[in-house]
């Protein structure tokens, strides 16, 4: 359900005004928009493409796209940060190519009998101070309804969705990471998304605790 602009937070209204002015060619407003939103979008991109230099290139693309598309932003269809974050995630996912290795995938990936380098990477991953996908989920205090609905998922459904969403993993990559059959993972993700949808719509899901 689209939240009418009258119910938005002050932040959302602010961003909407900045976007509207950027759409009219106001570069100062666009600079302010960048200042306010780029740390969030950069962090979102980094979760997907952990190469900082590439992430900065992606961020550049994102904001050039935002500048060009600002006048078509429609507040009746989405909130500004939702729109911006979606653009960022899409460009970040596009930047990942098949075979391109990300540190986490290298360690738990397809190669059986890991080489020394991969074993070292495992320790790097474990020592990584940044929160993993599950930590992020448990901290989703701003998105309480979504957090409550995520709680209705089984642990494996939740983990599959988290890996896909936060890191931009495909079904096959999630299956690799969790060492589970591809078909199983696909069904976890599908059940998870269906459960989220009906939970968010307020419907009662009778067998949400199903296989997983």
């Amino acid at each position, binding site marked *: 359900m689209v939240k009418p*602009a009258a119910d938005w937070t002050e932040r959302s209204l602010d961003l909407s005004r900045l976007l509207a002015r950027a759409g009219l060619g106001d570069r100062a407003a666009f600079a302010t928009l960048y200042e306010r939103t780029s740390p969030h979008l950069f962090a979102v991109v980094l979760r997907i493409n952990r190469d900082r230099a590439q992430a900065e290139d992606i961020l550049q693309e994102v904001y050039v796209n935002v500048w060009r598309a600002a006048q078509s932003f429609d507040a009746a269809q989405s909130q500004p940060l939702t729109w911006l974050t979606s653009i960022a995630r899409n460009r970040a996912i596009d930047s990942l190519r098949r075979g391109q290795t990300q540190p986490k995938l290298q360690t738990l990936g397809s190669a059986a009998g890991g080489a020394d380098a991969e074993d070292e990477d495992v320790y790097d991953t474990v020592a990584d101070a940044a929160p993993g996908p599950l930590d992020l989920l448990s901290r989703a205090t701003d998105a309480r309804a979504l957090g409550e609905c995520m709680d209705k998922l089984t642990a494996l459904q939740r983990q599959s969705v988290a890996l896909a969403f936060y890191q931009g993993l495909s079904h096959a990559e999630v299956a690799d990471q969790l060492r589970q059959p591809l078909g199983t993972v696909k069904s976890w993700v599908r059940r998870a998304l269906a459960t989220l949808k009906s939970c968010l719509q307020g419907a009662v899901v009778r067998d949400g605790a199903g296989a997983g």
Partner: protein
Amino acid sequence: MDYGRPELADRLAAEYVAGTLRGPARRRFESLLPAHPLLREATLAWQRRLMPLTAPIAPQQPSGEVWRRISERIGGGSEAKADGGAWTRLSFWRGLTAFASVAAIGLAVLLANPSAVPPPIVVVLAPTGTAPGTAPPASLVASISGDGSTLVTRPIVPVSIQPGRALELWAVPTAGAPRSLGLLPGGSGTVALRAKVLAGADTLAVTLEPAGGSPTGQPTGPIVYAGKFSL
């Protein structure tokens, strides 16, 4: 595949937003979006559902180099609208040249008639071509009376917009927030200009808002027509 089926549209949109739709399938999905309203709707709905998941991600500061490169690519310059901003980049400027000559002729005819009242200022608003939901593009003409008390707009070609939406007219100053001049049912309107509402403004813009106009007092929808003028 029949992309008109709601369940299929919903499933694909969910996978697209969640990130599991990848490779050629993902690219194909993106290419279908402009032409398939069901897919667009489903995608927007899933974005609304899932983007809150990004809320707890700790922000990270990009290097200053990123903004510098963005700034260069969007046209250099440091002042707001010093380069004309979006207006100069749009192809509508080319279309506007044709209308400008029409407007100039109109003014010349008026000037030929001696009168104590200054001639009106005519502003042609051309379509910016960014609102896919509206009817075929039309143009609006706005006329500001010589004594500055009234602004009248008329569509050159009849305008129709989808139910639940409205056209709102804004005076856009070179600095500061746009000021609403009111709604334009069917593209027509007569506005009694309050003192100074046009002060400092060099652009008239029309945006597509919810019925009843912007709920925030500032433009919230896409710009559908725009035109520059000078008082």
